[in-house]
């Protein structure tokens, strides 16, 4: 908007100040405005973005959850464990729940734990004992007992969780 754009004023009312008609003054003020407005916008938006991201990119805190006593877990079959564990969910203390499948390859000496979350879009898979495979109800993904993909859309095997046994109790880290 150049100065020449300023519409003439009603002479009754008054007239433009000569400063308003000076190209130099106008440009100077416009540049000061542009610089400050830009700086202000950055000063507001960058911290705002940081605030909105918050802790969303931080890795979840790993936690050991109890799967059960060695004696309670099947030595041969796959056991479904619905765990619940006390934890912090952002600002709340909550009980977190989830599903883990546990089996043993050495007759109950040691255990393998698989996260029951399907690697496709996150549904919880179901163990079918008769067919000896996990079936995902959502888009018909199938996994072997060891979690390998047999067929269907899942891109990766089921996630294997670190396991430890303490005083006869089996834990998995989620």
């Amino acid at each position: 908007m150049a100065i020449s754009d300023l519409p003439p004023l009603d002479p009754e009312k008054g007239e433009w100040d000569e400063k308003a008609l000076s190209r130099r003054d106008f440009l100077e003020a416009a540049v000061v405005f542009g610089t400050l407005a830009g700086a202000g916008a950055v000063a507001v938006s960058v911290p705002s973005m940081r605030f909105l991201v918050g802790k969303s990119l931080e890795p979840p805190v790993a936690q050991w959850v109890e799967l059960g006593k060695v004696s309670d877990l099947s030595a041969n079959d796959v056991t479904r464990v619905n765990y619940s564990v006390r934890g912090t969910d952002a600002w709340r203390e909550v009980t977190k729940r989830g599903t883990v499948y546990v089996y043993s390859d050495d007759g109950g000496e040691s255990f393998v734990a698989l996260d029951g979350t399907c690697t496709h879009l996150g549904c919880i898979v179901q163990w079918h004992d008769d067919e000896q495979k996990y079936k995902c109800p959502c888009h018909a993904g199938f996994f072997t007992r060891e979690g390998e993909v047999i067929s269907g859309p899942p891109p990766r095997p089921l996630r294997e969780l670190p396991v430890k046994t303490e005083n006869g109790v089996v834990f998995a880290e989620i």
Partner: protein
Amino acid sequence: MNRTFQWIDERTGLSGPIRAFFNYPVPKYVHRNFLYTLGGLTLISFSLQVITGILLVFYYDPSTEGAYNSVDYITYILPLGWLVRGIHHYGASAMVILISLHMLRTYYYSAYKKPREINWLTGVLLLFLVLAFGFTGYLLPWDQKGYWATKVGTEIAGSVPMMGAYITKIMRGGADLGQATLTRFYATHVMLLPTAVALLIAVHIFQLRFHGMAPPITERAKAQSKKFLPFFPYWVVTDLIAGLGLLALLVYISYINRAPLEFPADPTSSNYLPRPEWYFLFFFQLLKYFPGKLEPVITIAIPLFIFGSMLLLPFIDTSEERRPWHKPVTTLVSIFYIVVILVFTYLAMAEFG
């Protein structure tokens, strides 16, 4: 560049109105005058409240179980949470201060006189809505301070003759101060009030544009009243500088003094001394001098009188005189109010130590 501009203009027809908005002639006596930036600064502080308020809503948990923990999380754990909450917290005070100063400026310049009555009336409503922002926001952290101040505040509303008990219950959403209260205060604070304030600001500013600035009162200003500068960039740049100064100040205050958060609300605590936000302190203090039956005088009669006289002001004071030093009545009345507010605020602060 020009072609894009033209393209947009041909479809939207916006260039005319935008140009008119930017080129709006502002009298020279307004230019670089601090007193005339107060309204713009109030608008800027409202924008800051809106921005930080929207940011806070991303984390705030409006439940009696979660509210305190979420504000605690924002204040002490979330990256930059102290800053966003600090600006919102201190910005609320800044907004009350700025809107009051802006009102005093327009008052002493007799800017409420014909034909600017609606400008003044929307301003009075805005002042009360801003105070309502403060009152509803105070409860949201669900800490001792907010809980007990709201308990007392809703109780005060209950001293209205006849319908007091209903008012208290409606404000609380039930007999007790609890989840229903928090939810309605929250809804009022983040939905109702922001919408109402934004609409009123639009009317307020449209009125200003329609009538232009009220005539000057000093000889020096009168001498410049026939000279004009375009709104852009001359006026906006001063407002912008003042606004950035305000922001810098709020950041600084938030940094040196983290926005306070008391311990969580305990409805069974017996030794907590309720205390409202500082701008309600004088009112709280006045209550102490009117115990028992006289209480409604302070809680109802006086606020109604003040609010009513503010609304009626442009219709009572209809003379042509605009210079405060030639209008002893309005000037003395305002000084009386200012002194009362300052004195009782001081007394209350002295008492709370």
